[in-house]
């Protein structure tokens, strides 16, 4: 594959000594039936001491494989990885006593306490007893875990687990740190804390860090970034060099007050010359294939053309411009979204004083909200905030400890099955039958909702076309690539044309490309009058919602349109706060929404 951007293959870059040198790395995994999966193809790169080097790429890019090879967990098929001057295949034990490694799932023993986990890794790394007191104090201070040393790791929140994982990886002052997607599913506050710790370490101890991430804003903070795609390195360089290449190709459209930004987004997405269109802080951000506004003007009504600015490109813009991808068949959605939205004031989902207790732990604390027909309503918050619990109560999957719920006028936990036929549900982790083929999955869900004969065939045909699944028809669901699993799950949830769609963390574990596509589709359905209730822990995804409810530790922090919530955090220092800024401010109590913004329809 040729490099798609103007970014040259920068192999030399400033910094300290190389702590990691990857040369012509090849990795193939043997699969069943004698085939093999080429995870890495001829990858060469370097990471230097005193620097953070980021590995960026979509799912299946080979990020985790590369980090595992560096840690000595895998032996490469060809090529070499040299860590601290040692060969990763031959001298793995020597490497392992000098690097810190944090796997994706943090590698903690959930039934051991914080202190016991640290003791274990200190013993395994051979940290002398005399040095431990000082080291523990420093790590616990840094991670803010001092008060929790006796707590079981399994009882920690996602953010604290991640910090403990990092503390364990740092237990022996490593000369190099390997972090595999360290911030997946962690709340913004913890994410920010982690970065502080890592940068402090890099600055003070001069260690080299290699990390992989799917968050493009994190990549922007790295000293040096390597972009992997389907096992190949397609570019590398300092983030600002990438940004330079995207200059002149990024546009920001401020929609008129009567036009929803997502209308504009659907209008532009997938059009020739347009590489990316997303919503950022209430505006539509567009990346074009070539410089200049020509491509943009071709698709926009004349009226809107005046409202276009040219911001300085972010790393995300550059990344989107860089990643080669097939033009998605999104025209159908874009076309559908031209139909004016049949939004009404009819309340479809109603919750009053909703509470949920697990023993004496209060997972959800007195939540009240309404969702109107044709609206996209987002439940936002980090893992463990109580989103999923609220969600399960709405769907009738979990009992309600106190308060009232009605969905389309019914309590789903008590109502007879016909009431449930009106809603579609897509669970976290795309609940599909892995052994069944795409066709079998769809047939089952169709029939489960009482479809048969011609109507069933018509809906199947629609699903294949809409979600581009025709090619995968006879593949089992387990073998589908991540993005297609999500598509299939959505097709299954939508097969019976529900009025209300419940989506639980639909974008978790999905790469940035698939996430964009997903939201475009959701927009399309909302435009057709489907009510959508969605949970997510990606703060920037709230931009796609009409209204959001921000939750933390079971409580509602704020509710309103994305613009209203962002406005809460506006200050001198941050005149244009992002949703993430707003969340951090709300979570830390720096601002309080008084009174809680509620029931406002824009």
């Amino acid at each position: 594959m040729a490099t798609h951007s103007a970014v040259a293959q920068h192999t030399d870059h400033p910094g300290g000594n190389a702590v990691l040198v990857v040369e012509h790395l090849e990795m193939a995994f043997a699969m069943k039936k004698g085939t093999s999966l080429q995870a890495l193809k001829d990858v060469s790169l370097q990471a230097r001491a005193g620097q953070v080097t980021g590995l960026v790429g979509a799912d299946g890019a080979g990020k985790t494989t590369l980090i595992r090879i560096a840690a000595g967990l895998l032996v490469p098929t060809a090529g070499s990885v040299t860590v601290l001057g040692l060969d990763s295949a031959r001298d793995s034990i020597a490497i392992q006593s000098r690097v810190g490694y944090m796997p994706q799932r943090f590698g903690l023993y959930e039934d051991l306490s914080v202190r016991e986990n640290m003791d274990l890794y200190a013993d395994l790394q051979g940290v002398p007893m005399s040095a431990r007191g000082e080291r523990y104090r420093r790590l616990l201070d840094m991670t803010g875990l001092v008060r929790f040393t006796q707590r079981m790791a399994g009882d920690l929140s996602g953010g604290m687990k991640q910090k403990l994982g990092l503390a364990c990886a740092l237990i022996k002052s490593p000369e190099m740190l390997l972090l595999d997607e360290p911030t997946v599913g962690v709340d913004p506050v913890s994410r920010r804390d982690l970065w502080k710790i890592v940068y402090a370490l890099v600055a003070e101890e001069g260690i080299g860090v290699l990390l992989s991430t799917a968050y493009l804003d994190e990549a922007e903070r790295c000293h040096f970034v390597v972009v992997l795609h389907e096992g190949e390195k397609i570019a590398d360089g300092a983030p600002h060099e990438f940004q330079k290449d995207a200059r002149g190709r990024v546009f920001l459209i401020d929609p008129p007050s009567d036009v929803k930004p997502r209308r504009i987004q659907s209008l532009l997405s997938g059009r020739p010359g347009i590489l990316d269109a997303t919503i950022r802080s209430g505006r539509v951000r567009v990346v074009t294939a070539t410089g200049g506004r020509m491509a943009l003007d071709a698709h926009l009504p004349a009226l809107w053309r005046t409202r276009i600015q040219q911001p300085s490109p972010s790393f995300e813009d550059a990344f989107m411009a860089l990643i080669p991808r097939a033009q998605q068949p999104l025209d159908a959605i874009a076309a559908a979204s031209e139909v004016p939205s049949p939004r009404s004031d009819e309340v479809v989902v109603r919750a009053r004083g909703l509470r949920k207790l697990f023993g004496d732990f209060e997972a959800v604390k007195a939540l009240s909200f309404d969702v109107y027909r044709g609206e996209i309503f987002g439940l936002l918050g980090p893992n463990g905030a109580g989103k999923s619990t609220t969600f399960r109560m709405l769907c009738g999957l979990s009992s309600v400890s106190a308060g009232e719920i009605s969905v389309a006028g019914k309590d789903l936990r008590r109502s007879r099955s016909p009431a449930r036929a009106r809603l579609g549900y897509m669970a976290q982790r795309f609940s599909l039958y892995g052994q069944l083929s795409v066709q079998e999955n769809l047939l089952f869900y169709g029939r489960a909702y009482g479809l048969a004969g011609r109507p069933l065939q018509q809906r199947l045909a629609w699903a294949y076309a809409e979600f581009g699944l025709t090619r995968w028809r006879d593949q089992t669901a387990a073998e589908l690539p991540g993005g297609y699993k999500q598509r299939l799950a959505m097709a299954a949830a939508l097969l019976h044309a529900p009025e209300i769609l419940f989506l639980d963390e639909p974008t978790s574990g999905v790469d940035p490309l698939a996430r964009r596509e997903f939201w475009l589709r959701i927009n399309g359905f909302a435009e057709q009058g489907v009510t959508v209730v969605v949970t997510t822990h990606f703060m920037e995804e709230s931009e796609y919602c009409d209204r959001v409810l921000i939750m933390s530790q079971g409580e509602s922090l704020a509710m309103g349109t994305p613009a209203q919530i962002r406005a809460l955090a506006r200050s001198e220092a941050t005149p244009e706060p992002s949703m993430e800024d707003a969340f951090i401010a709300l979570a830390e109590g720096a601002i309080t929404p008084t009174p809680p913004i509620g029931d406002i329809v824009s």
Partner: protein
Amino acid sequence: MTSGALFRMRMRGILRKEILQIRRDPSSIALAIFLPMVLLFLFGYGVSLDAENVPLAVVLDDHAGPARDVAARFSGSRYFDIHLATSLDEAQRWLDARQVEGIVHLQDDFSARLATGQVAPVQVIVNGVDANRARLIQGYARGVLQKWGALRQARGEAAAAPGVRVVQRIWFNEGAVSRNFLVPGLITLIMTLIGILLTALVVAREWERGTMEALLVTPVRRIDLLLGKVLPYFILGMLGMGLSVGVGVTLFEVPFRGSIGALLLLSSIFMMASLGFGLLISAAIRIQFVAAQISIVAGFLPAIFLSGLLFDLESTPRPIQIMSHIVPARYFVEISHTLFMAGDVWPVLLPNAAALTGMAALFMTLAYRKISKRL
């Protein structure tokens, strides 16, 4: 620090982790303590191959003294619980309905034939569905009649019966109490449960939870990993063994005639073989569900059916006998039966111990080779 000190530190870390996990995980406690106790009590109190109070129909077509005397001998026996039937038909109906398990039938000329020195037949019909029990019932009936014959001789009613008389002596287990046979065998099963099933599950769990990956990137050596798993579960298994032996000897009054030293030594070897097998399974299989199924099919079932724990191996067809030689439990069942009932009979213990040592060494070596520091 010296490499020895580092090794000790790593071992201490792994062992402490493992012990804390065992203490905090209810399912390992259930598997290591609760299930063995349930099994022990079921086998100790519940399951028995010895019959007592067998319901028996007695049909007396002859009501003279000797016939009534025979009936009285049967009802006096602790093995039988007698129901008098008025006719053979009635007794047969009872047998069909499983109300009685056998019929003793004396014909109307029984006393007359006895008095005239003719052969006086006593017919014993048993329900043969459970062949083993039927044989025991026949044996008990034979015993009752022999005792009656001896009594008649003593009373001078009959001359000493000529012909061949069997004098039986059962060694090591004089009353042929099946509990003495079942409980020592059960200890084998309990140790297999801990050594194979529990071990296979805990290692697979580390893979599933992602902690193995974090462990592998630390500078642990393969031998640390192996010892770290072997030692705690070895101790757990030996505790299970000690507990079972204690309960067996004190509560169920099973004799223990061997020496504690021999028991400790030989059960250690067996435990190592079981652990080796369990670790081999878990090193190869990283999914708890599959590991559990394999350890049940390849570890647990053979320990019941191909070990001589319940069924006599020597009476099975040759292919099954040959197959049983790869089952470690088979050797320890023999060791445990001998230690409990016969004592330290080294000529029996040694060959079995040798086989177990070989298997322990083989499984441990294979497990060590199979444990890889790679993913």
